[in-house]
């Protein structure tokens, strides 16, 4: 039972993202950047985003930490590409609901894409913070970008 829970947590796709993080580069002159860490474990993530016509066109993702924080950050970098900041905010809320174990509406589940691979984290409450680290850092960056740009 518990071994299955572990396999559910550490799906192949998670371990793959952890070993080969996507968008693992640093962008110069980004429109939006943000970095942060989890004070409890020290995991770190930094993000840079380039925007064009209100949509994310390029992402730089770097980090150090556990497989869940790093895989979640890498998956996030993939799913936010091409999205508007508003859509990213909605997706962050859906993902947070998924982590909290809330039942998602069918149209919300459809929007998860690769994020669904992280649903096993729900069974490990102590690790939910790891999965949300990248999202919290991205949202901080969006908030700062919006206030800097008078929105």
């Amino acid at each position, binding site marked *: 039972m518990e*071994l299955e829970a572990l396999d559910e947590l550490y799906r192949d796709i998670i*371990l793959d993202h952890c070993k080969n993080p996507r968008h693992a580069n640093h962008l110069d002159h980004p429109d939006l950047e943000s970095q942060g860490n989890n004070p*409890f474990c020290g995991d770190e993530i930094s993000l840079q985003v380039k925007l064009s016509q209100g949509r994310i066109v390029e992402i730089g993702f770097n980090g150090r930490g556990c*497989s869940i924080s790093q895989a979640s950050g890498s998956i996030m970098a993939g799913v936010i590409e091409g999205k508007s900041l508003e859509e990213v905010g909605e997706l962050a809320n859906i993902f947070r609901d998924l982590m909290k174990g809330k039942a998602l509406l069918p149209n919300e589940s459809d929007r998860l894409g690769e994020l669904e691979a992280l649903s096993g984290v729900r069974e490990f409450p102590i690790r939910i913070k790891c999965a949300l680290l990248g999202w919290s850092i991205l949202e901080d960056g969006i908030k700062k970008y919006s206030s800097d740009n008078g929105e």
Partner: protein
Amino acid sequence: MTGIKPKIKSPLIKNGLGDLVLDVKKIRGDFPILSRKVYGKPLIYLDNAATSQKPRSVINALTEYYEQYNSNVHRGVHALSMEATELYDGAREKIANFIGSPSSENIIFTRNTTEAINLVAYTWGKENISDGDEILLTRMEHHSNLVPWQRLAKENGAKLKFIPLTEEATLDLTNLGELITSRTKLVAITHMSNVLGTINPINKIISVAHDKGALVLVDGAQSVPHLPINVSEINCDFFAFSSHKMLGPTGVGVLFGKTDLLESIEPFLSGGEMVREVWYDHATWNEIPYRFEAGTPDIADAIALGAAVEYLEWLGMDNVRRHEMELTQYALDAFDELDEIKVFGPRDVAVRGGILSFHSEVVHPHDLGTILDRDGIAVRAGHHCAMPLMRSLGLIATARASFYVYNYEEEIDHLISSLKKAIRYFGDGIRSVR
């Protein structure tokens, strides 16, 4: 007084070599929590540097206080209050004897080690450390013996200096004579590192510090539970430790201070208990140690700490130390089999306690922690409240296994096999099922 009378049985048993060693099986029977299961597996508790488990005598002492003589101390004229006062100050007496304090007046109850250190920083420190003075620490301090001194240094214009580490994770005392200058007012050092397990040569440091006129505070949070301690022999000026890491309950810590020092400093917190006489516009202070215990203290937990001290004395701290040295040696040898895992800290168990921090390039400490947890093994993963030390090791986190009197070799075997599984899982992608 308490439910079990540990003194009627012996905690020792003859091993295969005919030596008397801790009878771990018997000892485990005194700890109710050790019979519980985690995810259907027997609990293997290896997070003792964070907090220890409690024997039944300690749990009973808490229950008995609340069931039989719950009342406030030092003021009631009734039977309950007199009983509670006797047991509360009796616990202070037991603790004084346990650490070789000349008197129980040197034993101040605090909430924990952190509060004990803050008490010194906010009283003696504020009064005696001024612009241009120096405070000497080590590069292996827990945040609780670092951050209070950072704040004091900033407020009073003092400078922090640090004793560096050797390659073997011991203190590099080569330049100690130069590090302690005529401006050094205080040396604050951990007795045993909560990350590296290193036991520091505090006697030597204290003697050099005293020669130069500096006082010494020792953070004994990790040493008092595991080593025989005599603060009079050590000759430290202040010594701080916590109940919950030494079989006692949470909520109580201890500050030992030399009499003349304690008498020379102003109180920390003020209010009830700590006063002798109060007028509308001023007050005079109670004698030590009560001067430093404002408000109703944590009576039940202090009494239960007394029960924990009785239990440790029954085991014998020399026996505790020997048991943990053997267990640590066993664990160090077992970890040698794991090429993928690096263990930090000294190899020589004569200068290290039962704390093993380790790191793998293959599996992050958090992931290790999760996998071990599912095997019923409790370890700590993180920075262990020593972020500067982690940075100097080039890491953001380690996993840490730490031992106590109820741990035994088979538990370490389980730890090693679970670690092997985690490495296979992450390194080669070998799944536990399918």
